[in-house]
């Protein structure tokens, strides 16, 4: 789960990583008040996407009136489709220098990777492209944790004269990375300002698998992704019109790829997981068909733990509610029973993933 900048900064603050003074607000009047206290402020849209600056979602205001106006403007915006409901208003820190500091997981090395670059304020991928030699990377042994000498080496690469202060921030960021089960903890930019170093932006991504020991709750959005997740499935909305229901992530991706190969465009990715049963299948069908763009639906199940007859029963229960044509491919455990159950219904039965994908694309293209 990604955290909002504001939440990440709260965590930073609680762990003594310096951030500018600021508040989360949702109306322009509050922005005005805070600017009255803090002087020149920066007003930042709190939306879960990059490129806020380019989209006009970040503004500097040198007096309360200006703060009011900017806050009003940004609160009316949508950035990449996301409405701006909240703003972070914080003290403006003039950076003499903007640096990059981030901790991520190196999958190949199987350990945390700390990256530092004296060039910050832009994406690390961008830095990697433009000046790869300016990124210093250090792997951390997860059992020993970060050593002082490693923090020192990273800090030296940013600013040798102020390396003690930076090393301290690096060690604290690593602490946050570990304590909050992060897959990403990033300060970008880390500003070297008149009165010290400050995390001007903060990004944290928390490992969803660690929620049992972390005190995070995902924001309720009512999205299909969320509904699926609550039911133990994985849904990702896409731009096309072919609804997809598959058991298993790999097979689901393979099915999507096949749809594309046959000239179709998937409306979604949906993994009902390996142990899908009748009830799960009903929920899945309702989620996928609730997307109005969906013109046809493919159900591709390879039964291992999953029993095909149970899947069929789940489908049959929901058939009356579904308008889009269904293409169903059942294989594996109780395959024949499942197919037999479905034969009397107006659904297309396919005997392979390819056949199913081809059929659903045809149905999706034919205007009913």
């Amino acid at each position, binding site marked *: 789960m990604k955290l909002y900048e504001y939440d990440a900064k709260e965590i930073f603050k609680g762990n003594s990583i310096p951030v500018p003074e600021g508040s989360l607000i949702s109306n322009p009047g509050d922005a005005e008040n805070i600017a009255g206290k803090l002087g020149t402020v920066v007003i930042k849209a709190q939306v879960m996407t990059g490129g806020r600056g380019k989209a006009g979602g970040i503004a500097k205001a040198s007096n309360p009136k200006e703060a009011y106006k900017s806050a009003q403007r940004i609160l009316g915006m949508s950035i990449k489709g996301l409405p701006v409901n909240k703003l972070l208003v914080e003290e403006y820190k003039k950076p003499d220098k903007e640096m990059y500091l981030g901790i991520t997981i190196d*999958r190949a090395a199987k350990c945390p990777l700390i990256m530092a670059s004296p060039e910050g304020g832009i994406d690390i991928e961008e830095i990697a492209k433009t000046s790869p030699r300016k990124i210093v990377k250090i792997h951390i042994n997860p059992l020993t944790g970060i050593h002082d000498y490693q923090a020192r080496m990273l800090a030296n690469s940013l600013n040798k004269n102020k390396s003690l202060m930076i090393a301290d921030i690096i060690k604290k960021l690593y602490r946050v990375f570990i304590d909050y089960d992060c897959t990403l903890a990033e300060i970008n930019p880390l500003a070297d300002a008149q009165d010290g170093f400050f995390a001007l932006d903060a990004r944290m991504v928390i490992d969803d698998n660690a929620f049992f020991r972390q005190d995070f709750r995902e924001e309720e959005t009512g999205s299909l992704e969320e509904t699926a997740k609550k039911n133990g499935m994985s849904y*990702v909305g896409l731009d096309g019109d072919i609804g997809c229901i598959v058991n298993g992530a*790999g097979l689901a*991706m393979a099915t999507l790829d096949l749809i594309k190969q046959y000239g179709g465009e998937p409306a979604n990715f949906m993994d009902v997981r390996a142990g899908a049963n009748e009830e799960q299948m009903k929920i899945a069908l309702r989620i996928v068909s609730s997307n109005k763009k969906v013109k046809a639906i493919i159900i591709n199940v*390879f039964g291992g733990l999953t029993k095909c007859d149970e899947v069929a029963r789940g489908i049959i229960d929901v058939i009356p509610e579904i308008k889009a044509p269904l293409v169903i491919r059942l294989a594996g455990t109780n395959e024949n029973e499942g197919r037999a159950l479905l034969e009397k219904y107006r659904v297309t039965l396919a005997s*392979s993933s390819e056949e199913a994908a081809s059929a659903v694309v045809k149905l999706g293209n034919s205007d009913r």
Partner: protein
Amino acid sequence: MGILIDKTTRVLVQGITGHEGSFQAKQMAEFGTNIVGGVTPGKGGSEVYGIAVFDSVSEAAGETNPDASVIFVPPRFAADAIFEAIDSGIELIVCITEGIPVHDMMRVCSYLESASSRLIGPNCPGITTPGESKAGIMPNSIHRQGNIGLVSRSGTLTYEIIDLLSRNGIGQSTSVGIGGDPVSGTSFVDVLEFFEKDPKTHAVVLVGEIGGTAEEDSIGFIKQMSKPVISYVVGISAPPGKTMGHAGAIASAGGGTALEKIEAFEKAGIAVAKNPTEIVRIIKDII
């Protein structure tokens, strides 16, 4: 024959009294796996389908001398179960559990560097050597003995491909699911090294997906191999920044897309199948 497990492999099941553990233990036993015991803390002394249950791995190890352990314990206890298996000297550990925190897995993998155990998974379907043994959860019916090695990051897609191969008369030496998590014990290269050495394996199917660079990292070794490798990578239609079901299946602007992987394979002269059917066709061409 085949790799990693065979008829003689003595298999322990950790989490054997759970819903999935007991079901899969039975399935494995029916497949012919030599299951020597199970472990569930607090359930020592009981039995599951005639399999003796112990309180701890060390106790089970002392009594039953296992070579391998298959782990079905819930995510929050799974890393501990792996540590327990490592510390008890189990040579081959197959962790089926999905949803283990990645920080736990980094600690486990770091510990494994100085241990003698091999970990397959987590979040994987395990290993099947047809006609010999199964340490995992692949459906019993789909396998067929033969000379194709299979290694995959996927679950059901693996079953689909194995099934397709078998239906087309193409048997497998061993099928290995290495799992869909971002940090896991055994890599493509590790498994390919086993297949390269295995006289029964004549060619290998490698099934990859988006996220990370595990596929690219295997190219160097594949080029050195004496046996042909057929690759298949899924997730072309996956948008960057989104996790596609598996915790590890996420591509970003920084890399990990299916197209990058496919291009890398093609550039290295490694056969790339566009769909499961093509895998069969390419194998038939080769053999």
